[in-house]
């Protein structure tokens, strides 16, 4: 009997230690967007240096982050796309979207014979990705690239084969500017591509572009910059051809913010704004008092996010992310202040 009692004590001790491990309050766990990962790594490292709070971030993809948040296995999620209706209905409680950084999707191509930067209009872009425009010397492309000798070469479209927030940003833009795209293909993390080849991840698409003469595909700005890939100028709504850069993305993101933070930047009105830009969001529950979630942890999380939208923004530019506009920071502050623990606001005054 003594032995049995002893083993029971051992087992319960083990369970207790496990519980205390998972409830360790100076550890925060996040998961989601792989696009945000380089910026987050830098931010979290610096936050650990100054505040001693460790953040474990898993870059499993936006959709994965959302489903982990819905299952309540993480403290916060990160996504390049706001939650959709079905995800909202699956979620056990209201989720806040805090804009955290601004990203862009660029059109990279492999046409070494071109001296100038390729110019693309929304109509040409839709034509290319719908499989309408099949050769580079098409009159539609020639019309917006005066004086450029375009080769008589078949167009090879490269797209993402894995579901991704990047695809969602790009297809959302195409759906906005082309009614045909909206009705035939639509927007989503993975869609039924009418033409082209799929590559896994940014590196897969970049690999296809590099290898195939005459290829064009969409990749994230940061990836294109780091890998020194050629990318085109896109004509925005005001008729200007815009080179994607931190300043043109910031211009696109400088808009009045809705209170819930879910603003779309696609096809911006800003004269200098790059039209395929998007916010990236950190997702958290509005009510932080739920199972195995102590108040201390909620405090740490809210202070971390508050730091990320303020001081943390200084790491953006060096890593090719655009810093948030004052309006977005203000909206973020409002959203963070609305978070509660057991009905009481968590962030009362600025820390």
């Amino acid at each position, binding site marked *: 009997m003594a032995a049995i009692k002893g083993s029971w004590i051992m087992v319960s001790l083990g369970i207790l230690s496990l519980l205390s491990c998972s409830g360790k309050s100076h550890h925060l766990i996040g998961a989601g967007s792989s696009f945000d990962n380089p910026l987050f790594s830098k931010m979290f490292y610096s936050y650990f240096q100054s505040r001693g709070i460790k953040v474990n971030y898993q870059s499993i993809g936006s959709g*994965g982050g959302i489903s982990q948040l819905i299952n309540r296995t993480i403290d916060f999620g990160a996504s390049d796309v706001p939650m*959709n209706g079905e995800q909202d209905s699956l979620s056990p409680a209201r989720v806040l979207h805090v804009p955290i950084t601004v990203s862009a999707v660029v059109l990279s191509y492999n046409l070494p014979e071109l001296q100038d930067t390729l110019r693309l209009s929304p109509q040409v872009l839709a034509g290319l990705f719908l499989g309408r425009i099949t050769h580079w010397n098409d009159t539609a492309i020639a019309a917006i690239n005066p004086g450029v000798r375009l080769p008589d070469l078949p167009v090879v479209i490269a797209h993402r084969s*894995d579901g991704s927030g990047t695809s969602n940003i790009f297809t959302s833009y195409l759906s906005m500017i082309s009614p045909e795209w909206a009705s035939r293909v639509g927007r989503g993390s993975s869609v039924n591509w009418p033409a082209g080849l799929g590559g896994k991840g940014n590196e897969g698409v970049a690999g296809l572009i590099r290898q195939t003469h005459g290829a064009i595909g969409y990749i994230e700005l940061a990836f294109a910059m780091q890998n020194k890939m050629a990318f085109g100028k896109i004509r925005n709504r005001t008729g200007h051809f815009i080179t994607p850069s931190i300043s043109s993305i910031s211009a696109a993101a400088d808009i009045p913010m809705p209170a819930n933070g879910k603003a779309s930047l696609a096809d911006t009105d800003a004269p200098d704004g790059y039209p395929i830009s998007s916010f990236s969001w950190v997702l958290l529950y509005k009510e932080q008092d739920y199972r195995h979630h102590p108040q201390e942890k909620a405090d740490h999380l809210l202070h971390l996010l508050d730091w990320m939208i303020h001081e943390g923004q200084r790491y953006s530019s060096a890593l090719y992310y655009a810093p948030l506009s004052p309006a977005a920071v203000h909206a973020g502050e409002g959203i963070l202040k609305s978070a509660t623990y057991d009905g009481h606001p968590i962030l009362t005054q600025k820390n």
Partner: protein
Amino acid sequence: METSLQAPVIPSPAVRDTVGIRKRIRRSFRQIRTESVFKQTLVIAGLILVILVLGILLTLITQSLPSIRLLGLKFIWGSTWNPVKNVYGAFPFLLGTLLTSFLALLICIPFSIAIAVFLGEYYPSGWFADVLKNAVELIAAVPSVIYGFWGLAVLVPMVRSLEARLGIDQPLGVGIFSASLILSVMIIPYAASLGRSMIQMVPEHLKEAAYGLGATRWEVIRHVVLPYTRSGLFAGILLSLGRALGETMAVTMVIGNSSILPKSIFAPGNTMASVIANEFTEADKTVYLSALIELGLALFLVTVIINIIGKKIIDRFTNE
């Protein structure tokens, strides 16, 4: 063991006998117990495996119910895979899986049989045979992502120039043919090593009898060794087919990942395993997730059906 029972200093024969008998009885009880425990362990291990396979099948079926209910048989014959509109037709992927696997098999058969005959019959030992044997085993040990990189960097440009020479109007390099080539390299060791051990097991007297009748080495291989090892060679090929059906990473890197029904073997396509790997993490709708699981179920069933057909063929070969 027997000698230890006869202890050297024991007073009377009667006492010695009862002690010995008791010891022996105790020992045999222990033996029986070990015997039954061992047998039970085996049974449990076997049962766990059966339960595991049935459990996987059951999970796949229950998880794919939403998609089965919505799409029915259209899932297999439909050729549109459109997550945005919740239309899921797996036919292009089914075709892609079968095409790449069987094409890979076709390419690998001559090589694997040649290696098996060479190592089993011509050079069963010696340094060159050791080098070749280890190289073949190494092929099986290389992680598939390495094959993917190699395929993308080396094989795809080669296939592209081949396609250009064949006059295909858009030489892409990536596509079903490249995927089959990669797969054939990956599966050679499975067929070859099983074939080699089968060929080494051909009884010496059969071969000697054939030589005695004046047969040449080629004739011995053709009329004695190969017919004798037919079922073993076929089993090895079946094993490699199983590997080809489920291979994901290397295939997804070179096949082009297009959901459009492939028009030729040089066209880009997609396989069931690669679609699951690509889209599973970001499947953000219930039906979408369920359709991907149904794709897994379909892959499971295809593997089972091919295995059953293979077993039937092996049985017929051995009964002849």
